[in-house]
């Protein structure tokens, strides 16, 4: 539907803003261009409607070379939304929305109906909003109108350049949701530029990550999170967003640090005290160098309370996992050995933390 073929933009001072950009967008697809500042995403977007002229390569819309069209005619077939104030302040909402239909000389009745229909689509009562001026609207309302204006002439392709960037976080989320809804109804082919990863992950059918003018990775949000192409992509997405399977996450990322523990030489009463303070029913037993030795549970202590013993004497062995072992190993252990928790130790056997069933549930929830 929209194809980029080896598109290049080099400026007279030899800066290469966009380098060999090739991409095919399917009809109805919402593709997000994202990347660090200066990566060429906005430049690429503006080459579609020829606000910026490519120095090489071609862009096709529906198999028509955009270079062969009159730029002005081309732009009237493409919806364009930008970040900054773009509604014409001296015109009403209705007149603003009608900008391109008027350029195309649509009949008045058709224009009026279109404006009303669009306003209703975003729950803005035409009777109330038709004759308002942009200065009388909130930022979120203005951007909605901006989007409606881009949709008015029913273009097949829309270009959106960080349209929600200037809005507060709450409004931004609202508009992202509304865009998704709208997209269900109108099914436009949309090229969307942003620097907000959460926004991209939320609304994109496909995400294209750019750096220094080149495409680093183009994939669905799911694939991107599962298989980032390289370290740059991993860092850019942010570790915490990546989907990792239990066999990729290590025990030390999931464990509770500072589990309830006590030296082996201490007495039973002290053990009880420690358990009560930590509100646990089992205590991890360590030596004075924090080496893990075993486990004592409250019942065992109760049984032997009358006898003057140390914790060492009543403790039992317990399976452990290493810090760098996977969460999967830990869970497997819990299942196989039927234990409710697994202490985590380092290479030399020193206690580092504990993985409990609650921690496992937390982990699962995070990645759902």
């Amino acid at each position, binding site marked *: 539907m929209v194809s980029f073929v080896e598109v290049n933009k080099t400026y007279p001072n030899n800066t290469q803003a966009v380098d060999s950009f090739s991409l095919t967008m399917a009809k109805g697809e919402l593709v997000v261009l994202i990347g660090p500042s200066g990566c060429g995403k906005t430049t690429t977007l503006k080459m579609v409607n020829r606000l910026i002229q490519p120095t090489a390569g071609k862009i096709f819309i529906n198999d028509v070379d955009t270079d062969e069209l009159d730029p002005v005619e081309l732009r009237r077939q493409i919806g364009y939304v930008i970040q900054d*104030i*773009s509604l014409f302040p001296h*015109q009403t909402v209705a007149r603003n929305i009608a900008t391109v239909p008027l350029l195309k000389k649509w009949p008045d009745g058709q224009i009026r109906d279109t404006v009303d229909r669009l306003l209703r689509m975003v729950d803005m009562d035409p009777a109330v909003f038709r004759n308002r001026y942009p*200065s009388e609207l909130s930022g979120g309302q203005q951007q909605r109108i901006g989007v409606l204006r881009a949709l008015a002439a029913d273009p097949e392709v829309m270009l959106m350049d960080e349209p929600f960037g200037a809005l507060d976080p709450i409004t931004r989320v609202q508009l992202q949701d509304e865009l998704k809804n709208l997209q269900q109804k109108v099914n436009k082919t949309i090229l969307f530029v942003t620097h907000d990863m959460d926004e991209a992950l939320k609304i994109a059918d496909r995400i294209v990550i750019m750096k220094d003018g080149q495409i680093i990775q183009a994939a669905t949000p799911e694939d991107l999170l599962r298989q980032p192409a390289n370290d740059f992509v991993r860092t850019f997405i942010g570790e915490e967003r990546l989907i990792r399977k239990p066999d990729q996450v290590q025990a030390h990322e999931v464990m509770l640090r500072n589990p309830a523990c006590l030296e082996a030489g201490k007495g039973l009463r002290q053990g009880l005290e420690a358990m009560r303070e930590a509100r646990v029913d089992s205590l991890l037993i360590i030596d004075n160098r924090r080496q893990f030795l075993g486990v004592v549970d409250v019942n065992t202590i109760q049984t032997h309370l009358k006898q003057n013993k140390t914790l060492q004497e009543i403790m039992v062995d317990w399976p452990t996992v290493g810090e760098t072992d996977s969460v999967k190993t830990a869970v497997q252990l819990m299942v196989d050995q039927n234990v409710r928790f697994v202490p985590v130790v380092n290479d030399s056997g020193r206690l580092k933390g504990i993985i409990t069933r609650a921690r496992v549930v937390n982990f699962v929830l995070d990645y759902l």
Partner: protein
Amino acid sequence: MDFAEFFINNFGRIATRTAEHVVIALSALFLALLVAVPLGILLTRQEHLAKPVLGLGNIIMTIPSLALLAFMLPVLGIGNRPAIAALFLYALMPIMRNTYTGIKQVQPSLIEAARGMGLRDFQILYQLELPLAFSFILAGIRTTLVILIGWATLAAFIGGGGLGQLIWAGLTNINYNLILSGAIPAAGLALLTDLLMGRLETILTPRGIRKTRVKEVKNAFNKD
């Protein structure tokens, strides 16, 4: 003789001079608008010309008014014509500069949005830039006209008409009433013009912007 009496006795003469005065000032303004507004618009399209042309205008402005009037004499003789010519030259610069600046101060993002949507250059000019620059340009015209009314008094010095005639005659004969009969109407004209043009500005400012202006002023106060 007290002034009021003098005024009433010579009303016809004063009225005539006032009318002449207005004609001189308005003629100069009108001619200046014809030339300066299109020029100002042109400068926004041909940036490389802006600096030299505006610079030239600045130089003209520094020529003392009387001197400029005098320069006109060998070319255009005496009377109203050289006066209007000199005033025309003076009015060119402020109007041209205000037109240029008025258009330039339109938010670039608006222009970009308009271009991106498919408006042609002249459509952007007529539908966007001029309406938004209008009150700025009008403010410049207002100031210029008020100044022209002041300077039109000098027309008398080179044989032209207008209220300057009365002032000049009064000065030569040391007749205070005569001086006042020229000076007061001149000042009154200037004030009246300022007031009327102020009203005009408000009426003609597109509704959407008027409200923004008010908000801007309010915000400015709130920040302090």
